[in-house]
């Protein structure tokens, strides 16, 4: 899996950097210009090991802000995962708080009057912290980790539909893979569907 991702991303980056076409795949993105996206909602799911010891999707919340200039964009996202287990007398809640910054290259662009969309690949680096609140017979105790390192690779599609000259509804669909020594499984597969608004400069 890791070797495959390495070659996939390297190949895609190499192809994209050698691109010559002016529209569609490997276009220079002049038509896109620059824009700012605020994704405030969506559906997000990350693979984690569940109580039955199976790897399954764990839903979480996410907000993000991205800025795009021609073929490149940067995205900063905040994710929160909360998971509880146990019973009335003995239970714990795990809170995962994460900040990741992404650098993405949009290697396919489509640009029309009322819509834009693109395919992109990205690399992310970030940090997360986890807190466990343990409750036993009415007494609660909270413990936190230090800030921990996390990294990721992404492949996705984003699009926007303009309802004014500058404002658009924005959406993005991504498949990501996150890596960190502190997560299980490692690497972890992640799917994100973002919804938000875009302002085009």
């Amino acid at each position, binding site marked *: 899996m890791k070797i495959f991702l390495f070659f996939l991303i*390297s190949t895609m980056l190499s192809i994209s950097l050698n691109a010559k076409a002016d529209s569609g795949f490997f276009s220079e993105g002049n038509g896109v210009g620059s824009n700012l996206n605020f994704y405030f909602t969506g559906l997000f799911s990350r693979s984690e090991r569940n109580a039955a010891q199976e790897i399954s999707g764990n839903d979480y919340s996410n907000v993000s802000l991205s800025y795009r200039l021609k073929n490149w964009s940067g995205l900063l996202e905040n994710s929160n995962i909360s998971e509880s287990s146990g*019973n009335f007398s003995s239970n714990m809640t795990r809170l995962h708080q994460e900040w990741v910054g992404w650098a993405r290259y949009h290697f396919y662009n489509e640009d029309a009057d009322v819509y834009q969309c693109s395919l992109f690949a990205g690399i992310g680096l970030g940090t997360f912290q986890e807190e466990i609140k343990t409750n036993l017979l009415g007494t609660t105790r909270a413990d936190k980790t230090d800030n921990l390192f996390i990294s990721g690779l992404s492949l996705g599609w984003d699009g926007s539909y303009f309802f004014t000259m500058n404002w658009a509804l924005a959406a993005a669909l991504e498949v990501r893979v996150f890596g960190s020594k502190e997560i299980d499984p490692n690497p972890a597969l992640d799917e994100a569907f973002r919804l938000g608004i875009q302002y085009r400069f």
Partner: protein
Amino acid sequence: MKRLFFNHVRRGCHLFAAVVSMGILCSCSSKDESVNSSDKVQVLVPMMDKSEGSSGSYSLQLIELLGISNLQEVKGDFAHFVFSPRIKNNHIDGEAPKARFIKSSSGAYIPANEITQQMVAIYVHLQNLANFDKEVGASGINVGPQAVGIGVSIKDGSENNAFYDPKTDALYFVPYTWKGLPIAVNGGIIAHEHFHSLFSKMVFNGQKGKSSLHDRRSFMSIAGGVDEANEVDDKSRFEMLNRRGPPGTPEIPKFDSKIDKTKLENPDDSGKEDSQFYQDYHYLLLSGMNEGLADFWAWVYSGDPDFIAHSIPTEKATRTLSIKGESSRAILPDQSNLKRIVRTGESYESLDIKDYLKSNAYLIGTQFARAMKKFTDVTAQARGVSNLVARKQVAKLLIKTLPKINLELSKLALDAYYHPSIFLNSFIDSIPDLKEKECLFLSDVWNNSFLSEHRKSCKTQDAVWKMISE
């Protein structure tokens, strides 16, 4: 010029992509599973407060896991875990569960989910019980890490239980669905199950099939159904399970539902008892002793006479070791009572005799547990020691007694019965320096329990108290 510039940019991006990809790959390594023996591993565990006067309360404590070799599987010198296990070739089989921790800023490992908390709690209690075994003379009985099945799935959907299986020499914990303290976290219940492993090995020489009463039958039936290659072996194992008598008992004849009801009126008429009755009697007594002494061991370990109520509140009244008032007189079951119970069960043609004996065995067992507990209280008074010290002293005596039960059982003639009075004699023989109060208590127990036996009284002989027949 422009082309040259973009060539440089392209090469730089390639290099950057390679470096970042390598960084990502480096972080994509498996969680560090191994722990050096010198590493101190402290975990947060719900534990009993063991100080005097605080029995029954639990709190979150940081405890060091000893002998841990793999923290992600909570595997080490004292336990290894199997998730949702099967039985394969008479061994527990399955994958080890993956624990999930966070490492707090102070360096302690905090369980991040219920199953991890249960794994560390069981490990901590087993490590404590292993150390306790050493202190009371039971070291070497259990060898190697204890196999523990968690998330055990039973065909009849049983929940809220735990049991020890001598065949696989493993502990099994089924899911806990009630609101109380989970069984896998209840130190008293873990000690109770651990005692079954000692009883099985020391009384039955680890003979297969001589299990505790908990729902092992259902678990074994699904295990037998899974492994088709061993179907024949599983059938014979079930037959062995049915053979509930002491070592050397002949094969059980086909159960005859047309029992002579006059036997109910003459329970001591042993001349007309068949081998089925003989085996049912010993199943009742030995299972009762196993359960009762296991409850006593749980109290010795936890200091809590109501240890079971935290998890199974419905059992509090019947299984409490703390009794007051008129019923505080400690008595053991008499052989006539035991025979009467068996005859009553056999007189009902439609009754499931096994379930009937099982439920009565717990009642029998509680008598043993309460008597042993009261004796411990008397010991503390007689010797001027704390309750904690007295518990350890009496635990040592019980460990000395268990092989004597084995010896007495093996000496029994085929038609001879093992009586509770034989157990009491063996226990008294294990006490090298009987004190007066202890002797008086034990003679009271004898005289109140065994009405058909010679009465006993206490006498000093060379400054040592002895119990003698009147």
